[in-house]
């Protein structure tokens, strides 16, 4: 009996090795462990065994049964794993095939540049304000201390609707509006479209965008203008950026300055972008002219302020290395999709 049991065990082990799917495993289970299976048959035939041997044989049979069951379980796990593996292999795809299109739109480079500048100043507590593009001559020139005979007032430089109304040539008239309508402290930037009578070419356009900044409060000094623009330049062009002030002339500021930043390509060593100078001119600035404060109802004895202005296209072109201004207004998809 014992030998028979051992034989069954060995046979079962050998057979189990060869099984290769779940169906075969079920058949195997029936064959050995089922009601009509080989082990059951042996247990049933135990009636012919002596009483002393019976518990020993019974125990052995049960032990073998349990061993086979364990083996079946193990085999089942193995088969399941291998089946999953085959399935996954069969499901393999080519991940380099292009994705299904869910296109995102693009922001125009002029807008994204303006946003970047706006965010820097918003974080410094500036409000972003707006003003009309079709403006009074008085706001665009008179309030800003532009002399009556200033050439920029000429019909050859400025677009007029009538002798009193024009297309603003700068975002500065918003300064005048803000100062008249608000009491200091004032801390604003004003982005927007401006218009000048320039024929279109690679660096000129009759319409472009400017960003104006204005701070008016008690005890504002020229050092504050430098400090503010330094923070701006470092945030906009990188932490290593230095700025340089050059004396200049604008009717609406005094002292006035042109402001250069160290070239963000070469870091100031001189390269093609900065034409070997190491500096790039990016904005005009100065202390608000006392006449302008007075014209807008603010007492220059009590308050002072600074203002600055920059061309957004110019900065966008530098930033993205765009060599022709016309590309910005052609709106070719092949251009727009690069931003």
């Amino acid at each position, binding site marked *: 009996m014992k030998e028979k049991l051992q034989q069954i065990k060995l046979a079962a082990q050998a057979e189990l090795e060869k099984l290769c799917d779940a169906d075969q495993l079920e058949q195997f289970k029936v064959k050995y462990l089922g009601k009509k299976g080989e082990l059951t048959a042996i247990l049933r035939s135990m009636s012919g065994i002596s009483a002393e041997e019976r518990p020993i044989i019974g125990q052995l049979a049960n032990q073998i049964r349990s061993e086979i069951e364990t083996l079946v379980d193990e085999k089942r796990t193995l088969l399941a794993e291998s089946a999953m593996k085959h399935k996954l292999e069969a499901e393999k795809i080519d991940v380099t095939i292009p994705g299904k299109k869910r296109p995102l739109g693009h*922001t125009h480079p002029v807008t994204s540049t303006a946003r970047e500048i706006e965010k820097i100043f918003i974080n410094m507590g500036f409000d972003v304000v707006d003003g009309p593009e*079709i403006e009074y001559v008085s706001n665009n020139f008179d309030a800003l201390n532009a002399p009556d005979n200033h050439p920029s007032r000429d019909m050859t430089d400025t677009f*007029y609707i009538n002798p009193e*109304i024009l297309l603003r040539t700068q975002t500065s008239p918003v300064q005048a509006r803000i100062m008249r309508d608000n009491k200091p402290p004032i801390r604003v930037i004003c982005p927007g479209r401006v218009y000048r009578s320039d024929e279109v070419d690679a660096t000129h356009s009759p319409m472009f965008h400017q960003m104006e900044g204005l701070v008016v*409060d008690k005890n504002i000094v020229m050092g504050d203008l430098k400090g503010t623009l330094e923070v701006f330049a470092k945030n906009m062009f990188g932490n290593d950026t230095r700025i340089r002030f050059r004396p200049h002339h604008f009717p609406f500021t005094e002292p006035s300055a042109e402001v250069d930043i160290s070239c963000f390509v070469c870091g100031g060593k001189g390269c093609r972008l900065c034409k070997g100078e190491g500096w790039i001119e990016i904005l005009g600035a100065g202390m608000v002219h006392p006449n302008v404060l007075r014209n807008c109802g603010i007492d220059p004895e009590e308050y002072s302020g600074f203002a600055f202005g920059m061309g957004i296209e110019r900065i966008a072109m530098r930033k993205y290395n765009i060599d022709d201004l016309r590309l910005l207004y*052609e709106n070719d998809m092949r251009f727009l999709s690069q931003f």
Partner: protein
Amino acid sequence: MNLSFDWLKDFVDVEKLPTPKQYCDRMTDTGSKVEGFELLGEDIENVVVGKIVSTEKHPDADRLTICQIDLGESELVQIVTGADNINAGDLVPVAKNGSTLPGGVKIKSGKLRGVPSNGMLCSIGELNLTVRDVPYAVEDGILILQEDCKVGDDIRDVLNLRDTVVEFEITPNRPDCNSVIGLARETAASFNLPFDLKEPQVKGSGDDIKNYVSVEVRDNDLCPRYSCKVVKNVKIKPSPKWMRTRLRAMGVRPINNIVDITNYVMLEYGQPMHAFDYNYIDGGKIVVRRAAEGETVTTLDGTERNLTTDMLTICDAKKPVGLAGVMGGENSEINDNTTTIVFESANFDGTSIRLTSRALGLRTESSGRYEKGLDTENTLPALLRACELVEMLEAGDVVDGIIDIYPVKYAERKIEFCPEKINRLLGLSLSRSEMVDILTSLHFIIDCDVLTPPSYRADVEQMADIAEEIARIYGYNSIPSTNFKCEVRRGGYTPFTEYKNTLETVAQSLGFSEIQTYSFVSPKTFDLLNLAEDSPARCAVKIINPLGEDTSVMRTTAIGSMLEVLSHNRNFRNPSVCLYEFAKIYISDEPTLSSGKLPEEKTNLIMAFYDNGDFYDMKGVTDAIMNASGVVGYEYISCTDNTTFHPGRCAVIKAEDKIYATIGQIHPSVLKNYSIDLPVYLAEIDVNLLFADAGAEKQYKPLPKFPAITRDLAFVCDSSIEVGQLEKCISKYAGSKLVEVTLFDIYTGERLGEGKKSVAFSLTLRDDNKTLTDEDADKITGKVIKGMEYDLNAVLRS
């Protein structure tokens, strides 16, 4: 404005200046912006004076001559030349072996027809000079030197070719710096050097100007000062080398001694000068007046100019002899036979000169200076300097006496000088004496608390101007950077801009890309867009001086701009283009704005695509925008009368009488006008109106506690009935338990019969207080079915 160091040295010790680069940097820092500098003579190397010792014919070439040249070296040098104007004993410029000539030409030893030649004899052309620079030279031969020089001398020293020339960009507030003296003053102040200006000395030759000329200024408003002197026995000849080289360094062509003197004084003093030939001044009388109606003058450039009555002229007793401050007349031009001249040194009104110059399209060195407004005190020193130069050059005899018409004398400006205020504006703490030093170096006069700027500094009017003077000499870049002290507060966008930015995010996530187009358009746009003759959109604000018709009116709709961009993209075969623009439009009922009221500037969101779907794709886009807009209670209404759009494929999104948007397929004839060969779907959305009606803050509603039931119903109705009508009818009869009604099928076919369609909806029903039973749901659908039949003759499809 160019500045020659050779000239600058008359006023400032240039030996004390640093390298040219350092000089330029400092001048830029103190407010005289340098565009660049040039080292003249750098392009010539190893060219020296040589003496021709002997000449002989070349054995194998008739046209060549073999010369033995003494260069002051131990041996003579043999050079073969093709020139025939040389003789033994001549001093000539010799480019030695290994020398460089202008244009980068290198001269090396070689053989000419077998004869060794160790250099080259130079003509003026080869030294980049003309007979204007070296009047005694010939154009087509070797330069035979007449200078005081010896063999071996560097030709650059012999001909004064070495100089440093700096180019400045002068700001309009500093016309005084358009002169050597002005820049010399700035140089002296910038480098803390003495400034040495000598008063011109004129000996005179007797006689009296009154015997020659009288002056009448009729229009004092345009001519605040007129000064002149007379020179007789004039000998017209070339001016001396030093004057010619200085003029040349400043970019002015030498002409003859008298003309050169006027140019020299203009460059040196910044005061334009003019010389008239006295013989052509009829009646010996100079009249300064506005031109009479119909008068003409032929200017020095040979052009006859038609004058208008606002142009200031210089006339003799009968006729104009020059355009004041712009250009002299041909009739009184200095020529080789001139014997007596009148030197004019006058002050004219800048605006008048600018307008005259603009009107005639004639800009000159002189008009450019007058335009900026000149110092009335400067006419006399300049005039005397010109006469001093006449005597120095022995160009004629200066007649005694001067005519100087100067009715309103210059009044000095007195400005309060308060160092504390200046420090307070700049953020500095300079002492009073530091400030006084700076201001004194700029020739300001300080007497206690009163400061008087020099007459040529009309730009200095108040404290801020003085502060700038101090800041620029002290150095803008030396002012410490500070952070202004202020209340802490959050900056940000206006609510409208925030709103616009939200819609922009939606537009971009829907795959639309932003464009920027010009705000001005052609008035033809309205025809291209098929607008009715009486469309209010045709009333556009007009620019009176546009660049061209294409940019002559401010747009009232941005659809045209969008179609132009789509057309451009289609031309380049860019596939499936989806674009948007937040476009300003300008609305007014009067194109000229003559009432003085500014137009309303509105923002429209234009979205459009081609090759990216149909009407319903665009409707999905506007649905998303409207969803994000926070506006509720709107509906799409079919619109058949917008002539820009396809009459059967256009809708407006509206609530009551407010139209938030127009959406549709662009009319095929409009597309043809823009040469687009694919259907274009476009939405024009009124952002201002949406913003005004955007709802309040969002509020949470509890999630439903009870499940919903769906019921699908298909109705057969007339084809002409719109889905919107059916949906409205379902909502009406389903009542408050209806959560949503969704269209899921439209079917037309023979089985339904002619003019019929089947429309299938899925209804979602829910009760907030209990679970709906099938019976409840059936009750509701029963009502809907009856109602649909009653209202719209739409029968449940069986």
